[in-house]
């Protein structure tokens, strides 16, 4: 075993100090009838060399973006990651440190998280950001919980039907068993119908959850929808794409009360869906109702500026069943990746990435629409980097044909369950174009699909 130190001689010496005669007798408090009494049936141990060969073999059985071009979206995106991100996140001082409860021994993590909070506030225009939650989908549930606390309305939340279907499912898992009604306003035409949203709202609604750009990639009337939420005294929760804020209006600018996002785009690899990064920001007036960890600036006993875990009275290790949430970890290492990514890009870089995504996605959409049998699902709707197409031969046909040519598109819309799904969802496929995609790739795909 490569990670154990004590030699048999040392073990004997230690047992003697303890005053027992064998390792086995250290387990005397486990009653014998509860002992397993046989070895665990798990595969035999492998040396590092064998393990590497084994895992490499398993990895080679997967087909990833190294062998096909990724144009997939649906909440996880193949953005470029500068080398410096891996370099910093790979430092043992960051990834092998614990939650910074001992501030004197953790100023590095604490200041980094404080800067992460600051960077996300600058990106979103929001007052306060916490030190991250699990991922995008659970952020929606946490924002609904928080909205219930703030508004003291516990029985009803409204979601736009253009919210990621898996986010909707997570919210339903978290809320419906509490007898909180989760109302989904069906999205029939690629973006919310403000009149339908207005009709779904009432004075008992805790919040309206908007995704902008939405699951189909198109832009919502986020400002107008926020006004509708406020008209009923509900909070406006906006789930945004962090990259899009390089060019789009920020949630803080149009009055969102809570802004949430999946932060994977900010320097974290796809890694089959996790770990990702839940970004969670809100207005200052709600900060004491906020879930998750918060880092604050203060001074030490010598008056020196320093950083600590702040407002811990909200958290479960203090408040137990009265805590603002049960979350006791953050996504520290992923938050560090996002901080390094945003620092490298700066205000100019984030704008360039957003513009590249937007320009290339529009080129791709135009070109794909020239393929016979393929049309944009929502040709009239403005979009950012992702869009839906439908294929007259069926979604499977399109995905298969693209795969054969070396391109992964998707997900297909029929994979998800929708309330009142329009007919064309059956043949719909999402296409996401990041700054990494080139004109030549897009042209090759289009040529292959035309063949």
């Amino acid at each position, binding site marked *: 075993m490569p990670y154990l130190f004590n030699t048999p001689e040392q073990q004997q010496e230690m047992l003697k100090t303890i005053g027992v005669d064998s390792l086995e007798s250290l387990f005397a408090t486990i009653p014998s009838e*509860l002992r397993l009494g046989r070895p665990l049936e798990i595969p035999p141990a492998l040396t590092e060399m064998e393990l590497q060969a084994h*895992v490499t073999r398993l990895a080679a059985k997967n087909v990833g973006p190294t062998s096909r071009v990724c144009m997939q979206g649906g909440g996880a995106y193949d953005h470029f990651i500068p080398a410096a991100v891996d370099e910093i996140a790979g430092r043992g001082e960051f990834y092998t440190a614990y939650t910074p409860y001992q501030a004197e021994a953790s100023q590095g*993590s604490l200041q980094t998280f404080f800067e992460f909070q600051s960077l996300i506030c600058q990106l979103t225009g929001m007052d306060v950001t916490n030190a991250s939650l699990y991922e995008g989908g659970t952020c929606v549930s946490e924002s609904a919980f928080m909205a219930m606390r703030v508004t003291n309305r516990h029985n009803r939340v409204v979601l736009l039907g253009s919210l990621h279907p898996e986010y909707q499912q997570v919210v339903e898992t978290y809320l419906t068993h509490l007898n909180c009604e989760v109302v989904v306003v069906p999205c029939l035409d690629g973006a919310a119908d403000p009149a339908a949203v207005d009709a779904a709202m009432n004075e008992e609604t805790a919040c309206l959850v908007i995704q902008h750009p939405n699951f189909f990639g198109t832009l919502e009337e986020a400002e107008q929808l926020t006004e509708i939420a406020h008209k009923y005294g509900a909070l406006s929760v906006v789930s945004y794409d962090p990259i899009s804020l390089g060019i789009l209006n920020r949630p803080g600018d149009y009055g969102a009360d809570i802004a949430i996002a999946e932060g994977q785009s900010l320097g974290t690899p796809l890694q089959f869906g996790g770990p990702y990064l839940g970004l969670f920001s809100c207005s200052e007036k709600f900060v004491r109702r906020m879930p998750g960890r918060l880092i604050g600036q203060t001074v030490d006993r010598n008056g020196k500026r320093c950083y600590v875990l702040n407002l811990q009275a909200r958290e479960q290790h203090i408040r137990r069943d009265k805590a603002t949430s049960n979350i006791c970890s953050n996504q520290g290492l992923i938050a560090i990746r996002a901080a390094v990514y945003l*620092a490298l890009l700066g205000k100019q870089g984030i704008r360039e990435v957003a513009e*590249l995504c937007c320009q290339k996605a529009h080129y791709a959409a135009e070109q794909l629409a020239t393929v016979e049998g393929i049309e944009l699902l929502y040709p009239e709707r*403005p979009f950012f980097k992702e869009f839906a197409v439908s294929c007259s031969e069926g979604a499977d046909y399109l995905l298969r044909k693209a795969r054969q040519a070396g391109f992964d598109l998707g997900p297909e819309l029929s994979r998800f369950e929708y309330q009142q799904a329009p007919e064309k969802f059956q043949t719909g496929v999402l296409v996401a174009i990041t700054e990494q995609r080139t004109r030549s790739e897009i042209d090759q795909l289009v040529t292959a699909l035309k063949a």
Partner: protein
Amino acid sequence: MRNKLATESLFALSKPGRRGAEFPAADVPERPLSELIPTSALAEKPTGLPEVTEPDVIRHFVNLSTLNMCVDTHFYPLGSCTMKYNPKRHERLASLPGIVDLHPYQDQSDLQGMLGMLYEMQEMLAEISGLPAVSLQPAAGAQGEFTALLTAKAYFEDRGEKRTKVLFPNSAHGTNPASAAIAGFDCVQLASSQEGLIDLEDLKAHLDDQTAVFMVTNPNTLGLFEKDIKQIAQMVHDAGGLVYIDGANMNAILGYTRPGDFGGDMMHFNVHKTFTGPHGAGGPGSGPIAVRDFLADYLPGPVINYHPDAAETEQYTLETPAKSIGRVRTFYGNIGILVRGYCYLRTLGAAGLKAVSENAVLNANYLKALLKDVLPVPNGNLCMHEFVASASKSKAANGITAMDIAKRLLDFGFHAPTVYFPLVVPEAIMVEPTETESKETLDAFAETIIKILKEDPEFLHQAPHSTIIQRPDEVVAARNPILQCCEPQ
């Protein structure tokens, strides 16, 4: 020698026009943005992100990183948190092409290696827990608790029972009651016995037809094995309830006993503790749950199934259990951490896992024996992987508190143990050395504590003395929260 310039905030380092990343010009015909996006949706001004160079960024964060203690540099005996060595091979293997770059919506036929690995992980966790059905989805231990409680709720509702109460001992982790509360249960806290174990009488007094779940950590947060666990489980089952095992302390019993064998119906693993996923200064974690077969249909989806007779490209599939509680997160789980856990289990095998528990328990008992005269442990004779000592004696004698000892240890190059938890021990100092420490390290640590206890109490109240900052003012921080460097733009 500190580089104070580099550790100024990123915003202070910012100079207009500096750049840390450049992107190629668009290779597609560009159109004015206002043709693509309605102007009402476009930002009027750029974000307030700082402008710094790549070397600025590297020097800044590398300098910050050196202000941390971590497992790679220091002994980190945090009770209840299991800070063991994080094997470097895991970092390399989790970053392999074909693992780190898989999109969650790829076709299942493209994912057979990944799904096969995750299926094997499910199987290994089932064997280690003695509970046959596993969902890898929960993102952390606390989400595992919540998920299992919803699973139990769905099971009871399916049987036409409306059970409202979740019981847990007063030594429980704060996440247990918090998870029960957000799952919509009433929380009932039980007393501990004189020995620091579950008080059977108190448990009995609170068990009734409203009891849904009893949550228990075993070994418990005092580092003691609940020796009556089988009887306790029987009592809960007789009342029609289910037993939940908080798996935070699994590293004490690997291969020795299994929650499924001692009466647990459900449990979560902390892959980021027991199976060495690094803590990342707070996360990511991974909290898969394992349950008895009669609960399998309620697990959150998707789970991975194996069809041995299918074509090789379709043997492993993602499926949602028949009566699933739904999803608890997007996609499938914290895969990067699960891959590390998988590598750990495959490195150790059965004998290695058992040796881990033996050495964890040996180290804890050894350290406890070295400290028994200065920091007595109120509960239990033999401990498991951790013990909770009390500084009450030194506090009464000369005013040296648990906090003083913790802070002063930093000066000697040891991370502090967990202090003031669990709440049931006054002046608690909770120590978990883990199996990846040597006798030499434990000897040095014990000597240091003994030395500290002889120091001037006034000097100790001011400790630490050698760290970059000393005793931050948390009251000021909470009263007037400063939560970001600059004003919103």
